[in-house]
């Protein structure tokens, strides 16, 4: 079966130029294809560039180099009409529902803002749409005249989802949508996202640092480290058979909520911390903390190596 690509990220780079000629390589040479209907999980520790990647795909940041292609069209070369449709079809849900909703707007205004901007429907149909959306995300339509401060964190995240869905998107970037919520609420939101995906055939880019949740929701998972995608595989393959030393260490450091298994958990410790992203490291970015480091790591190219079974890894250990 030939799967249809919805988003292609090609050699994407996003550098931030700081004072004193310092350059922060937030996203460095990343290639990803995201297929229609899948959930692509993107994991990594804070500062690894996963949010920057999400924002660059959405066009909030202008890429330094490389391309983002949405449904076959390069977003940096789109004309006004295509751009409008792109903005409509790619939506975003942010991490913190306390700061992502304007406190001075009513639910009605919040959810219909996108409709108004894109001039979809009349006032009346817009209001109907809002009610429909609220019901869809599990909120009662009576909330239509309320303000964000009247809602709990989970409800606000539902509002943010309703807001993103109102315009009928095809692709939604979820940037840590559950990390600000309590555990009992996280499940509710994740199940809601799953439900909506089945109903509307949505494609998600799910950015998170909670690996167990990513394992639960994703179809394929990419692991980022210091601006680079170091490993990419189907979720079962990745979690059963991690190849990159960083992924191995990352997976082994997650505590298991089961005392017997947790006591037996064998950890592959990585010592030290992530080096400053301001220093450009030549070759492999993980070499400073890797126990398999070899001289060739200094000359490693940014190339994901296909090791079969849809599993890609960027590490000199798998070079022929």
């Amino acid at each position, binding site marked *: 079966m030939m799967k249809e690509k919805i988003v292609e990220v090609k050699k994407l780079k996003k550098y931030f130029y700081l004072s004193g000629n310092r350059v922060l390589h937030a996203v460095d040479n990343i290639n990803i294809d995201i297929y229609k209907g899948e959930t692509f999980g993107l994991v990594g520790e804070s500062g690894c560039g996963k949010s920057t990647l999400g924002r660059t795909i959405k066009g909030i940041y202008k890429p330094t180099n490389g391309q983002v292609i949405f449904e076959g069209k390069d977003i940096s070369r789109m004309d006004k009409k295509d751009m409008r449709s792109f903005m409509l079809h790619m939506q975003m849900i942010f991490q913190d529902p306390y700061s992502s909703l304007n406190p001075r707007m009513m639910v009605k205004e919040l959810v219909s803002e996108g409709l108004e901007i894109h001039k979809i429907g009349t006032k009346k149909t817009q209001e109907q749409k809002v009610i429909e959306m609220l019901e869809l995300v599990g909120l009662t339509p009576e909330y239509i005249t309320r303000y964000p401060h009247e809602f709990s964190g989970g409800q606000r995240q539902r509002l943010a989802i309703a807001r993103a869905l109102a315009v009928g998107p095809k692709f939604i970037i979820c940037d840590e949508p559950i990390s600000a919520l309590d555990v009992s609420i996280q*499940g509710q939101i994740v199940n809601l996202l799953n439900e909506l995906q089945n109903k509307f055939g949505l494609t998600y880019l799910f950015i998170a640092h909670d690996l167990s949740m990513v394992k639960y929701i994703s179809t394929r998972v990419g692991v980022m480290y210091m601006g680079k995608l170091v490993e990419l595989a189907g979720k079962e393959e990745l979690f059963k058979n991690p190849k990159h030393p960083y992924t191995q260490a990352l997976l082994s450091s*997650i505590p298991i909520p089961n005392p017997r298994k947790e006591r037996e958990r064998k950890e592959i410790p990585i010592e030290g911390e992530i080096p400053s992203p301001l220093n450009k490291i030549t070759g492999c970015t993980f070499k400073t903390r890797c126990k398999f480091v070899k001289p060739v790591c200094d000359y490693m190219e940014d190339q994901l190596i296909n090791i079969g079974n849809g599993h890609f890894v960027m590490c000199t250990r798998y070079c022929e």
Partner: protein
Amino acid sequence: MKKTNLLDVQNLTISFHTYIGEVTAVQEVDFSLGKGEVLAIVGESGSGKSVSTQAILGLTPIPPGEIKSGQINFKDKDLLKLNTKEMSKICGAQISMVFQDPMTSLNPTMTVGNQIREILHQHTDMSRKQSRERAIELMGLVGIPEPEVRVRQYPHELSGGMKQRVMIAIAMANRPDIMIADEPTTALDVTIQSQIFRMLKELKTKFGTAIILITHDFGVVAGIADRVAVMYAGRVIEEGEVNQIYYQPRHPYTASLLKAVPSLADNEDQKLRTIDGTPPFLLNIPPGCPFADRCDYTMQICKEKIPKYLYLKNNSRVFCWLYHKKALRQLEHFKEREGRV
């Protein structure tokens, strides 16, 4: 009492006076801590886990807070009755605290070395030279590389994980009997989190410090805790040994919370259990069990009367009507559905 407890919190009720009314954040909470024991207090935000432990060190902001009732016994003293001066002799020396956010809990204008030495000078009569050496020693102990260089650095020069290590060094400086760690790794990445917990376990075995760990992460608890107290809506709704809590949860909330967290060890395609609704608003708590609205096993009585604790062996207890003798059938139903692992 069977065992001599190091710390005994009894019948603690704390409320906050807000502009919309009185919010009871902690209600009739009791828990105890034995020597060298690790007690994990687990709960969602707003369940009262931080408020109840802050009271131990007298950190409850009064006003707006008010300690309505209760006793906190530590070494034959009721900590709630001590004045500020007496309290400051205990804080940082016998009981110390590590806060959640290392970015804001260190003083940005002082070197980290001086911040460690401050607590040493406060409680001992060390000379400046001694305290400097001790600060370096402590920083080595918590796994900070090149402590001789790092003592002279300011917090902004350290990473989040390093700052939390400094906080732990400060907490351990006077070899306290009890360390309270309030979500010590929530702001940190998983790989750093596992480093910190490895170190905490080492410190615990080395010095026999008892730890109260406040967290919402069941994974972390599984690895370090001896006993677990689960809090909900300001009350301890279940307490027990770590294995019992995980493998035989007695309260429906504990059972469903455990199933709401996905685990890397889980098999695929197990639908994530959710708990419908949200925790009650603590301003006007409805009569009856605070979990009644979200519980799958609610009975008529749950909505009318507050349950009583059922005390069981091994110092465990549960706060639920299911354990009343008239609710036997419902309890069977609960046991059947939740299954025993």
